[in-house]
């Protein structure tokens, strides 16, 4: 019965926080993007790019802080391409996201081979721990508080969310839909990029090909399960982080690991079909803004 004790152990709690962190940042990123009506499934590729860029810069400069900043910059770069394709050129959001994910998978593997000759790169430095946890975790908690305030209490935040609900109305009062969408998508890239940087520099201490391993999609799942709210997303990400922590730490009798792997996706479908409460995405999700006349 050791496994029951293990579930409630402090170390499992810490592991849960560590596993949940990149997922929650991706979820919040997805939320920012979708609050302006742009679907961003490129989160997966952005995490991967952030992890790679962060690793390279940390090793080149010896500074994990610069590495994390570079991860954010890489996320911004990927998000910029997504915004150009899906907002300016009105490409299908999903296709643009798929293309960026394919790109990130190929490009990070390619560059890892070119730069180091291998597909795995170890990270030499990480930030000093504070109370046993990476400072990025405290920063992320602060980001969630700020995001909750920003999205619901500030003028810009409300404008972002209005864009996701009714683009024509936003346009009619003289606010640029395009600008709002760029802001939403870019913030999402910065957040998911930070998640990727954390994953490689602070958590795994290495980069390896394909290391995002579905975290971007679990982030999307968290966003949906959290009903497109920051705190809901954080809660869902924690639950999914917990299920990941369990997979790595213990084997529960009669519950195969693969079932724990499926859990986030099964729950998301259950939420979408209304079996576990209803979740309503922003009304303009996936739409393009076409000005009449």
């Amino acid at each position: 019965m050791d496994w029951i004790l293990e579930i409630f152990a402090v170390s499992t709690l810490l592991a849960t926080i560590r596993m949940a962190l990149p997922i929650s940042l991706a979820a919040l990123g997805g939320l920012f993007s979708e609050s302006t009506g742009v679907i961003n499934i490129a989160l997966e590729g952005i995490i991967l790019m952030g992890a790679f860029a962060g690793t390279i810069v940390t090793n080149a400069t010896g500074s994990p802080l610069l590495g994390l900043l570079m991860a954010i910059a890489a996320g911004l770069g990927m998000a910029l391409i997504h915004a150009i394709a899906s907002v300016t050129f009105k490409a299908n959001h999903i296709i643009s996201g798929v293309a960026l994910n394919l790109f990130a998978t190929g490009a990070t593997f390619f560059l890892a081979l070119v730069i180091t000759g291998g597909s795995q790169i170890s990270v030499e430095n990480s930030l000093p721990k504070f109370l046993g946890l990476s400072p990025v975790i405290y920063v992320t908690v602060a980001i969630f508080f700020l995001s909750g305030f920003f999205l619901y209490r500030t003028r810009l935040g409300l404008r972002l969310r209005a864009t996701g609900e009714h683009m024509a109305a936003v346009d009619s009062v003289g606010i640029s839909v395009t600008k709002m969408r760029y802001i939403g998508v870019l913030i999402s890239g910065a957040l998911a990029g930070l998640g990727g940087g954390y994953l490689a520099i602070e958590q795994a201490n290495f980069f390896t090909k394909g290391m995002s391993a579905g975290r971007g999609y679990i982030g999307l799942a968290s966003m949906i399960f959290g009903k497109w709210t920051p705190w809901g997303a954080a809660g869902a990400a924690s639950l999914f982080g917990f299920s990941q922590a369990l997979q790595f730490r213990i084997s529960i009798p009669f519950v195969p690991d693969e079932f724990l792997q499926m859990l986030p996706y099964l729950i998301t479908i259950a939420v979408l079909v209304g079996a576990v409460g209803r979740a309503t995405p922003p009304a303009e999700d996936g739409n393009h803004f076409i000005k009449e006349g």
Partner: protein
Amino acid sequence: MKSERRSELLFNVLMNGVAPIVAILIAFAIGGIVIISLGTNPLAFFSRMFSLNFGTLRGVSQMIYRATPYFFTAMALSFAFKAGLFNIGAEGQMFIGGLALAWVGFTFTWLPFPILFVLCLIAGFLGGALWGAIPGYLKVKRGAHEVITTIMLNFIAIALVQYLVQNHFMNPEWGIPHTPSVAEGAYAPSLDKIIPWFPSGTRANIMFLVAIILAGLTLVLLNRTKLGYEIRATGLNPNSAEYAGINISSRTVMTMAISGGFAGMATANFILGPGSHYFLKSEYGGIGFSGIAVGLLGRNNPLGIILAAILFGFLENGALGVQLYFPNVPRQIVEIMQAIILIVLVIVLELARKFLKRLQKRG
């Protein structure tokens, strides 16, 4: 009337001809710049790739082998598109169908060729169809958007297949998790057994011909049958389709099932064709997602998709061979190029659409 026909021709040339070619050229240009930056002559690199693929019939045969699975996952995307549905679950449908067809192949071992071979294909189709029908059903009954449910079902399929192979089908002594081998009755004949002048000893097999036959059948289904008409009507305008008496719910589920069925047969090329003859999950990852690029590059037309699949086979087979000559350029260069093709294509298509609209306005 005449100008209408002319503008339709212009539309076809721009959207189905110029746009894909521009996307491919830009991808080669960017790939070339990357290759230059590694100190290699891109012309030498690409011409070596070309001669590896087209220089000998053997090369052509290997290229065809690499191209075949992309046809199936691309058809999964494009068939659903005809009904206005976005199936990005080909990856999961491919895994479920692949395991189903392998299971039939190693379970009903007493059946002779071609009965077992055909049964395997049917099992692959049905496995993929089941996995594709689920998001169709959830959309129709509960309003769950198929993009999200197909993404989620991809990961559920991956975990499910891994669980089944490791816990039920695998001999623990094997090390790498894979199923038992399919029986000889399930083997897909290699192409040289059917086309006498084809070189022997490559892995190109009858699945390529199956793909071509399916492309033809799909064109007939979509353009010459009532079901095809109803599927297209649902895609063009669901409201008027419903008003015209088409049961769009049942058409949605059926389209997703057929779409998933295509993806379900994708791994037959590997499992039934010459080679290891068992289901090895790690060998197929990504073919479902790349199928999205192939389908769009083929402009959602079965014949276009065959060409696009051959281009992807060209890149993949070329990348594998060219490594011997240019070891300093990792073969993942073609993955970057494939992604660039996709992103440039969607942008060029939008630009072409805008250009045509402006032209129309001017009269």
